[in-house]
């Protein structure tokens, strides 16, 4: 996994709650035995018309936002199927971070999706509902606005015309380290092979 570096990129918003992984990548695009080539399939039912042409109203087809690197959605993003293809599609499109709101017990991201993102160097950022509302308002006024994500500092900054909007976010310390250092989970776990063998011996 590549190290997660601080970056500045275009922000694009898909103003919907409960975006499921069938919407992120419809199943007709799952029939691959490879880990690459999913970027073109991201949001394909919303992004393309039936004849395969672009739907010009969809945010990723607009000239200002088609090269976006930060995605903003509403709550419970990535619910449904565990297909990691959804994360591969988001990453291979070019996104490096997703922002969604958490309100009390109502999470920004579904569990399996959030886990899958972490395994692929895609940062999931939870902000408050008020903050995400504010971001959507800015996106509406200033399509193509840029944002900077600084994982080390745990901030995302929206570079609005009226001035920078800076938001701090929380992240689990272990995930932060893994992303910043680009660590491979399997290699990390295999350090404990003796423990695994001992567990197996005890439970046989």
């Amino acid at each position, binding site marked *: 996994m590549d190290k997660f570096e601080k970056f500045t990129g275009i922000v694009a918003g898909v103003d919907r709650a409960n975006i499921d992984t069938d*919407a992120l990548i419809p199943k007709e695009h799952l029939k691959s035995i490879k880990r690459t080539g999913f970027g073109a399939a991201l949001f394909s039912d919303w992004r393309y018309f039936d004849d395969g042409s672009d739907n010009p109203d969809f945010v990723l087809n607009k000239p200002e936002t088609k090269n976006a690197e930060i995605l903003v959605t509403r709550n419970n993003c990535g619910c*449904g199927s565990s297909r990691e293809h959804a994360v591969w599609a988001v990453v291979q499109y070019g996104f490096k971070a997703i922002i969604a709101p958490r309100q009390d017990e109502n999470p920004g991201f579904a569990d399996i999706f959030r886990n899958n993102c972490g395994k692929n160097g895609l940062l999931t950022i939870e902000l408050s509902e008020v903050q995400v509302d504010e971001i959507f308002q800015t996106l509406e006024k200033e399509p193509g606005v840029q944002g900077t994500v600084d994982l080390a500092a745990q901030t995302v900054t929206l570079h609005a015309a009226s001035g920078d909007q800076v938001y701090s976010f929380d992240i*689990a310390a272990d995930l932060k380290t893994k992303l910043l250092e680009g660590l491979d989970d*399997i290699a990390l776990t295999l350090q404990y092979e003796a423990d695994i063998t001992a567990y197996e011996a005890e*439970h046989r």
Partner: protein
Amino acid sequence: MSKTLFDKIWDAHVVKELGNDEVLLYIDRHLVHEVTSPQAFEGLRLAGRKVRRPDCTFATMDHNVPTDESRMNITDPIAKAQVDALTENCATTSVTLFPLGDDRQGVIHIIGPEQGIVLPGMTVVCGDSHTATHGAFGSIAFGIGTSEVEHVLATQTLRQKKPKNYKVEFTGTLKPGVTAKDMVLKLISIIGTAGGTSCAFEFCGEAIETLSMEGRLTICNMAIEAGARAGLVAPDQITFDYVGSGNRVYAPKGDELVKAIENWKQFYTDEGAHFDHELTIDVNDLAPQVTWGTSPGMGVDVTGEVPALDAVPEYSPADVRAALDYMGLEPGTKMTDIEIETVFIGSCTNGRIEDLREAAEYIKGKKVAEGVRMLVVPGSEAVRYQGEKERLDRIFIEAGAEWRFAGCSMCLAMNADKLRDKERCASTSNRNFEGRQGKGGRTHLVSPKMAAAAAVAGHFVDIREEL
């Protein structure tokens, strides 16, 4: 200290504490299918790693396989590549495979229980969100992504943080015609599709204790539709009888089984154990449920109507509007006035023998309404054989339905079984997402009995009035 059922199983599988609340959790059973595994096997190969416990790993092809006569000669080249890759990957790593054409092939979550692969007290994972199904045995079972599939293949463990405990108690007794499917759809409509996020449900109460294993499997299956990765039911005599019955090749037998059952009796929630969340649902007056929208939480009683935009607590008016536009429905429409064109009976939610029996019992001697297409897809080849032994296939065929071979089929429409644009379907599956059963297709989730009744009437009906 008092522990929950979940805590007991979790604690027994901790290999090592990793800090930051993360543990290395041992995995007893790893179930594998053709769609989410090829990239994991490839990753393993590229890193020069081996499958650590092929004896604990079981595979089948289910997601993309045709369920008609053509199934042995898959013509879709990409689907065939996935099936071939799984065959090759299992052969080179000594993983047990139930291939297409094998008597034990079927939907992975149907065959796990059926073959005795999944047992009480185990940890079970699969690259599929409906792995929650297996929690019905009193096991911790949850879905994982492909990176985690590779991690389990290589290490037989996962790095995990413990979820919270969420108790869902179903009190009372179901009325005739009301089923486990209605119980879980009701739960999801109450707490929404994110209500169980970061939690493991324990389903308990009188209405769970009296359910068959099939019914418990249906409820645990849809835990994920309420956002929870896992849902558990404490094992009891019904569980033990299920494990001891039938031809469960991988389950313990004889004295071994007696010993195992003694051990399994420790898996229950202690008096006074702490739950982070608790919810009680009384099922005495529970009505059959039908979904009207594009999220499993968008459901109502069959006696109800499509709600007003601002009358759905877990969804914003904009979400409801978008769902209704997609579904081609308007607020105020009575659910029983909604006409359907297709009926799908099957899936890991409702593709077990009991589900087919319930649908067949209703449809026996009746005819599928003019213009309605009905697909009955057994969850496994073993279910198909049993159904044919009981002549259920004849009942469905004589009613005008199609009787298929086992597979996921129209639940996710990765094979040729798809809805057309705007085609409306009564489905016993688990997801009514946009495009789930085919681009533009409109899915209403119901129980097998309700699906059978809709097939005959051509629209939804209150099954209770038909009994």
